[in-house]
């Protein structure tokens, strides 16, 4: 009796993994948990699935490719982890059933390696967080930015993400710098902490 139960549990788990992989293969965004040689493990990479324009000669459309949209690791990752979990918690499959992806990032030590499917909202938010935290030394600001991005609606997240990535190099740079101030305040501002404490749940 017990053995059978155990078996069925294992099967359920396998089935879930299989479905997750399938979803990750088609999802508009993917969160990849991986390792890089020169960076402390793990490294989280958010990727967008880009479908190239159909070729003009009417031939087969090229395969969709995943493009890196942002990377986070180390201290910044540890500070943002609760936020990332919150963002992942909201992702559902096509039937509206929560995938509970946050369980892959549970605990102190992230053991899971692989791809997780993201929806548009989660993808844009994570990409924005990962982008904006680059080169920030002040971890309080990093967390504040992350928490504020997490509160964006889907539309806001996508809009601000495109503002930071789709308007040409200079405009992108300015947008990112501006957003860092807008969401995370000036470095060394004491109010950063107050704001942060208010946003924490």
């Amino acid at each position, binding site marked *: 009796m017990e053995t059978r139960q155990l078996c069925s549990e294992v099967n359920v788990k396998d089935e879930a993994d299989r479905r997750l992989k399938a979803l990750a293969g088609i999802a508009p965004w993917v969160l990849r948990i991986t*390792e890089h040689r*020169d960076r*402390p*493990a*793990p490294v989280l990479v958010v990727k967008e699935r880009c479908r190239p324009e159909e070729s003009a000669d009417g031939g087969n459309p090229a395969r969709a490719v995943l493009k890196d949209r942002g990377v986070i690791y180390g*201290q910044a990752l*540890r*500070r943002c982890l609760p936020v990332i979990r919150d963002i992942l918690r909201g992702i559902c499959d096509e039937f509206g059933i929560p995938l509970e992806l946050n369980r892959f990032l549970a605990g*102190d030590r992230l053991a899971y390696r692989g791809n997780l499917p993201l929806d548009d909202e989660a993808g844009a938010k994570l990409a924005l967080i990962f982008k904006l935290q680059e080169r920030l030394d002040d971890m309080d600001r990093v967390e504040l930015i992350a928490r504020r991005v997490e509160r964006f609606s889907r539309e806001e997240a996508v809009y601000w993400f495109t503002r930071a990535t789709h308007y040409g190099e200079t405009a992108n740079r300015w947008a990112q710098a501006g957003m860092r101030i807008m969401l995370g305040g000036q470095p060394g501002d004491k109010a950063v902490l107050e704001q942060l*404490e208010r946003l924490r749940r």
Partner: protein
Amino acid sequence: MKHVIETCKPRPELLAGNFNPEVFTLSLMPIIEFYRKGSSNIDPLYTDPRLFFPTATYPTQGLKVTLGEVFARLQGDMTVPAIHRLETAFGGGKTHTLIACTHIAFRGKEISDVVAALIRSDILPEPGSVCVAGVAGDLIPVHEPKGSALEPYTLWGEIAYQIGGEELYRAVESEARSYAAPGRTYFDKVFGGRKVLIMLDELAQYAARLEAARPDGADQLAAFLMALHSYARNRQGVSIVLTLASAHDAFARQTGYLARLISEVRGEEVGTDDALGIGERAVKGVASVVARDAVQVTPVHAGEISSVLAKRLFESVDREAALETAEAYMEMYRRNSSLLPDEATRESFKDRMAATYPFHPTLIDYLNNKLATAENFQGTRGVLRVLSLAVRDIWLKQRKVPMIHACHLDLRSDRVVNEILGRSGSSDLLFVLNADIGGVDTGSREGGMSNAEAADRENPHPEGYPLHEFTWKTVFLHSLVGREEGLASKIFGITEAEALFSVSFPGLTPAQVRIALEKIDSSAFYLKFKQGKYFADQEPTLESILASIRRTVTSGQIEDLLKDTAGRLVKDGGLFHVEQHVSQPEHVPDGKGKIILGVVSPVAQEIDIEAIITTKGFNKPREQQNLVMLLVPETTRVKGAIEQPSLCEGGRGSIEEARKRMEDIARQVKAWRTLMDKPQSYGVNPRRLQDDEVKKRWAERENALHTAVASAYTGFYYASAGGQIVRKEIKTAGGEGGAPFVEQILEILKSDKKLLTPESTKQDDLMSLSKLFFERSDIAEIDRLYDNFLCVRGWPVLQNASVLEQIIRAGVEKGIWCAYRMGDEESSRPSEFYSRDNPIPMGVSLANKGYGLVTPQGANKREWSAKIGVEATRLRDAVYEAVVQSGETTVEGLVEEVREELGDVSESEVQDALTYLVKKEKLYAYRSDPNAGGKPNIFAGEAAGLYVPRPSDGVITPARAGEKGWITKRDCLIIQGEEGSKVVLPLLKRIGSIYMRGAKSKIEVLDLSDVELPGGGTLRLEVMNVSPDSAKAIGELFEVLGEVVTRAAGAKAYLRLADPDDECLLVKEIKKAQNER
């Protein structure tokens, strides 16, 4: 000093538990009933005069006066007043006096033995000779009763009935039944020469009821009293004792009771204000009559109350012990006189203490002056009830107290609480009692203890007294009455001095009590301090609001707060790269090339230090293991071989405890921040939070958190010599930016010789480093060494990269090791080699590739060190020749020429050689100076000490410089080059003899080089600053040399004579030889 349980003996019924506190609420009527009917179900203590007088009666002054006068009057003494009014405002004893009168009136001489202390025996009446009429004003009916039983319903009817029974009543029935006050004839009929004692108790209440029942009731009562008084004044044998409070406070404390009485009479609900109106109207007339005729007596004076109380509660009290105890108290008061009220140190107070023993005077004062003012407390009766409960409690629990204070009242007992809170109308403060002090329901509170108990547990009294509970209880008790008027009331609250006075006793000093009082501010929920008084209040204090917020703080918030605080302890930057919130190996980056100080997360349960230092993730070895250092809080368990010293004995428990302590403070701080952020959400006026005191408390908590977190970080782990991971203790009180942490860590590292600083260049430092460097081989590449500093755990760490270069240079200078750099692949000798004799020039950067270190022995073995002397000389010669050949060139050109001659030499080597020559004045360097016309700046000799060649600088031989007229100051004769050798060489043989003959010139320099020797080989000879005498001495040398040197071809000579004198023989010879050529 003895305790009260040893010195006093309470009445047995008190201890047996069948003591009925209701005996104190006895009234006059049951006693009179007892004498009429001969039996009663009330306590024999009151019905039996032989018990009543010796055991229950203390002979107060008022009692003695009253008894003496009343019975003298009855015996016919017209000089004493006939009418007595017992003043009841203070201290009670009214009913007791009436009962005493009743007993004596009925029993008279029969009981003369027990009343001897109270009354002269000659005025005692014969038993049965006195008619007694006692009326309780709150009991006799005011309406005509229904039914057939005879029941008087007027005061005068009642008196007639009591004196003469039914017979007399029937005789005067028409007047007795009339509501109109009777006249004189009535009294004649009723009293008729009898000895009559009339006692009218609670007259005011009767008047009020009568007034309520009939419109002119009170007026008729006043008329009756006036008639009765005037009759009694003029007749022998009639004495009247009545009780009536003075008009203004007749009902002041009894409005509720009055309203009830009047409602009964009216048969409808009467409000307290209406009742008071009726009462005052009724009493006014009666009171004026009584005031005119009656003599006022106070049954118990203030000073007598305690004796009365003791008499009623105790069988015996040890008076000597009382004095002894009072003395002990006085001594304590004298020592602490500055803290206490003046009263405490007065000598008279000692007597008072002895008199009130075993009760402390402050308790008696509290009960009489404060609690007894409550309407339902019933004055002295209430006091007795409370005291009897207190005494019973102390004896049953065998509590060792020197005297009984207010704080010894057991508020955890239901009966005491009901008695005190119930009767003082303060039941609404019950929750205050439970929360702050400890009451009946405290056990069911969260945590199961009151705030005072918690404070006692946190800071226990050395003798084990519940100091805070005692103190806070006293404050609470003093807040029960006078609450309506608040702080303006004299009886509400307690000042500090009074509180110290009330609570302290030998063993519990006033100073200790003060600590408990001060604690009120920070820990009590409802006790407060305002306008100099401590008191209990229903409005919660900030502390209680904070407590309620604390309950809503989540563990996640606490963790965040702790992490935040820990994250601020040590700031990134400076010597260390600081990595915050570390708990796993992958949290510490590898390859930073800088010391990494990992601050372990304060909420991490357990960490594996060895894993963090040796790996950078699961199954991934770390490279730069030597750079990882960890700061570990005592709240985290350290796994693995390294022993973590247990905080105390407890091991695991103590870690949990430390963590709990830290979390408690974090919880408090979080609550403060929440409250400060949104005070309105918690019903607090934001202005209240702007108070300095409040802000100070908040800041204090914030600091406490910082300190708690900082001081939790006591373990500093790193790899020490031999690669062992060691733990060092860090003690810090924190501080902004973590400077103390960094300082302590540096101190530890330096003392362990783990850290190399620019100062680590002493001989022994270098020696020990040399052992590390050349552990395996006598040669070591600097790049490899640098890697070892980062990766090998047993090695020290470098404060920064430049320290290594400084150390290497110091080691070279001190001859501990030599530095080298191999040149091209073909050469077996290094192209650069530096040793003690040839230190590393400033311009050389060891950071460049290819440098290595070798031990001096290793260098000797390889014959690298010997080579260097020759090489330098060769280079200098080449430089010199190059300049001499061209006569004048630039530094740039010089380098080119030397390279042509010697192959690959570095520019700096050439410059070094040039500098050497310039300093020796063999060559002059010059730099054109636009400001000095055509003449450039010349560098030579000592003036060139700081000369650093530039490529554009010119180089010139002294001779050419002389020709150009650049050297004007000094006159000297110079011959040089191959031409010169042709002059000098032939002269050599004769130099000795020329000087013998008197030549005076000093030979500054004579340098012969490339002189071929007959059997092959060349000779070089240099003499400098040779005086004429020296020249004579070495004349033979030159003679031999002159003979050996046959050919001057290829030989070069340089001769310089300072200040040549034309008369000098040598100069003459030289000039002659020059002319010959």
